[in-house]
C-alpha cells in the first residue's frame, strides 16, 4: 500500500516543480489581469462617481444617496428598476439603458465592496415625542396596524441584510423622506410583491418624517456592514429578495424585462 501511495502523492509535486517557472509566470499573469480588470473599472464608471462620489459615499447634495457598502443584490435590483421604469430618475435611466446585466452586476459588486467612512449624523429638529415615535416605529413597528419594524428586514443594526436589503443609516433625511413619498405615490416600485409600497402607504406624513429624522440622526460605526443571516425569516414576502438562503449572492430576477429572450 505504501508503495502504491508514494508515486501518486509525489507525481503532482514533481509536475509542479518541473514547470514551476511557467506556473509562476502564469499565476502572475492571472493576478495582474485580475488587478487590471478591477482597477480599470474606476475609469469606466465616471458617470456614476460624478454624482455618487468616487467612493460611492454620496454626493454633492442630499439627492444622491450613498451607494457604497449597500448589498450588491440591492444595488443591482435598483439598476434594473431604473432600466425598467420602476424607479424614476431620467438621468439614471438614460445612463443604464444600453448596459447589459453582466456589466450592471460588476458595477453593483464594485460599490458594494467599498466602505469609506460615513458622514456625521444629522441632529434631529423634531420635538421629543416625535423622535420617540420615529424610534418606536423603526425598532418596534406597530403590530396593531400590521406595520413591521424596520429592523425586522433591514437588520438589527439597520445596516441592511445580505444579499438584497439595503441599510437605512448613513442616508440623509431628505433622501429617506423622498423615497417613502415616492413609494406612496407609486413612482418608486420594486418587484412584485412590492412589500415596501404596502408599508409606505400605511404611514402618516408625520410618521415618515419622524422615521427619517430618527434614522438620519443615528451614528454609524466605522466598519459597519450589511448583516448575513441566511436563516432569518422575513415578516413579508418581498419581490427580488430571496427568502432564507435561496440565493447566495445577488437578487433574483422574477421576469424577463425587455427585448428578445436570450
Amino acid at each position, binding site marked *: 500500500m505504501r508503495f502504491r501511495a508514494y508515486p501518486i502523492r509525489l507525481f503532482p509535486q514533481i509536475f509542479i516543480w518541473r514547470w514551476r517557472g511557467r506556473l509562476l509566470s502564469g499565476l502572475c499573469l492571472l493576478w495582474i489581469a485580475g488587478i487590471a480588470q478591477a482597477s480599470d473599472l474606476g475609469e*469606466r464608471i465616471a458617470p456614476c462617481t460624478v454624482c455618487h462620489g468616487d467612493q460611492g459615499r454620496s454626493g454633492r447634495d442630499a439627492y444622491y444617496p450613498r451607494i457604497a457598502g449597500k448589498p450588491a443584490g440591492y444595488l443591482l435590483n435598483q439598476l434594473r428598476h431604473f432600466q425598467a421604469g420602476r424607479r424614476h430618475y431620467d438621468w439614471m435611466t438614460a445612463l443604464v439603458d444600453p448596459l447589459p446585466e453582466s456589466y450592471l452586476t460588476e458595477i453593483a459588486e464594485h460599490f458594494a465592496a467599498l466602505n469609506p467612512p460615513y458622514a456625521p449624523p444629522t441632529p434631529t429638529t423634531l420635538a421629543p415625542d416625535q423622535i420617540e415615535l420615529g424610534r418606536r416605529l423603526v425598532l418596534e413597528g406597530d403590530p396593531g396596524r400590521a406595520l413591521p419594524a424596520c429592523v425586522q428586514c433591514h437588520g438589527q443594526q439597520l445596516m441592511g441584510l445580505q444579499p438584497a436589503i439595503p441599510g437605512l443609516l448613513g442616508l440623509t433625511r431628505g433622501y429617506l423622506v423622498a423615497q417613502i413619498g415616492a413609494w406612496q405615490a407609486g413612482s418608486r416600485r420594486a418587484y412584485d410583491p412590492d412589500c415596501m409600497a404596502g408599508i409606505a402607504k400605511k404611514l402618516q406624513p408625520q410618521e415618515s418624517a419622524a422615521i427619517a429624522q430618527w434614522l438620519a440622526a443615528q451614528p454609524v460605526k466605522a466598519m459597519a456592514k450589511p448583516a448575513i443571516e441566511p436563516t432569518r425569516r422575513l415578516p413579508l414576502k418581498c419581490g427580488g429578495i430571496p427568502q432564507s438562503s435561496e440565493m447566495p449572492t445577488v437578487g433574483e430576477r422574477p421576469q424577463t424585462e425587455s427585448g428578445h429572450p436570450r
Partner: protein
Amino acid sequence: MKWRPALAAMASLALVGLCLISWLGLGAHGDDGPQPPKTADPQAQIARGEYLTRAGHCVGCHSARGGAAFAGGKAIETPFGVVYASNLTPDAESGLGRWSATDFWKAMHHGRSRDGRLLTPAFPFTNMTRVTREDSDAIFAWLQTLPPVSQRQPDNSLRFPFNTQAAMVLWRALYFRPGIERPDPERSALWNRGAYLVRGLGHCDACHAPRNALGAVATGPVWPESSAGQSPRKATMSELSGGWLPAQDWYAPSLRLHPEAGSARPWSTDELVALLRDGRHDRASILGPMAKVVFNSTQWLHDDDLTAMATFLQSLPPGESRPPPGIPAPIARDDTLRLGLTLYEKHCADCHGENGSGQPGRYPALAGSRTVTLPVAANTIQIVMHGGYAPGTAGNPRPHGMAPSGPFLSDLEVAAVVTYIRSAWGNQATPIDTHEAGKYRRLRTD
C-alpha cells in the same frame, strides 16, 4: 359673398382627392402578395424570424419600458400627436392571435391592419413594404411563438385631421407606393443586400433623413408595383441626409455628408462594421438614441449583413458640405472661450486630453470630431449635459461612460465648454449661447 370662393376651392380639392383615390386604386384592399413558399423547416424559419425582428429593431417601439416584450403600448410622440405601438404577441383579443401570415404581410407591405384600417405612418410601412414575403412570414412565425400578453394599447391621440382615415388615404397618395426592394443588376449582391437591410427592415431613414411638414421621409428609389418593368423613381439626394428627432431632442446625422456621419471616408468598412456590432471602434463610439439601436438590433446581426450595410452606406454619394461656403461662422467671444477653457481643463482634459486628442479605444478625440462640429450642436450639448454610455455589447461588454455635467454646470457653463471644444484645436463650428444649451437640460427618456 365671401365664402363662395372658399367653398369652391374646398369642393375642387375634394374632387381632386377623389380622383386621386380612384386613380391610385387606394380604395381597394391590397393584394395578398406572392403565394408564400412552403417552408421546409419551421424551426429554421422561426430562428430566421427572430434574427430579422432584431434587424428591424421592432422591439424599440413595440415594447414599453418595463412592460412585456413586444406587448406594445409604448407612446410614440410625433408632431401630429401620440401614436401607441401595437401588441405583436399572439394574444387573440389584443394582439396578433387571430392574424394569418397574409394579414401580417398586408400590414407590412400595404400598411393596412387586419380589419382594413389604414395604419399611421408612425409604423414605417414605407420601409417595411420593401421586405419580401418570405421574410415577412418568418417574422410573423417568430412573433407567434411569443407568450401571448393581453394588453390593449390606448387609442392614438392624433390631432384633427391626422386622426382620420381620409388623411391616411391622402398621405398614401402623396408619399407611398407599395413595392419590394428590387436588386440593382449593376451592383454587387453585397451592395443589394445592404440596400435591402438599410432601406427596408432597418428603416434607418426613419431617423437619419429629413421629414417634410406632413412627416414624410425623403426615401430611396421607389419601385411602384403597378409599373413593373419601368425604371424606379430615382433616389433623392436627401436619402439618409440627416434628420431631427423631435421626441428626443437629438439629431440623427446624415449618413452621406462627410462633415456629418458620412462613412465613405474616413472610416474603413471594418470600422463601420465594428461601430454597428460593438458600438465603438478605436476612433469613435456611439452614444444617445443610436446606442439603444446597437444594443437591441445591430449587435445581433451577422458580420456579412453588417458588411453589406456598410458597403451600401459607403457607396452613397457624399454630397455637398454645409453650411454653404462664403458665409463666415460667427466668432465666439473671448470671455466665453476663457471660461470654456477653464472648465475644459478642470472637467474634461483628464480623459479627452489637453489637446483634445482623446485616447484611442477609451475616450474619443474631440479635435477633428465630426460630432463635436456638427452644424446642429444638439448632440454635443446632450452628451456634455447628460453624459452617457456606449452600448454594452459582446465586443465591448464593459463600455466607458461619459460623466454628466448637468448636475453641476450651469447652462452658461455648458454653453462655454461646448463653444470651446467647437472652436479649439482647429475645430471650426459656431458658438453656442446659454439659451441654446438650456434647451437640452430636460432629459427625455421614454
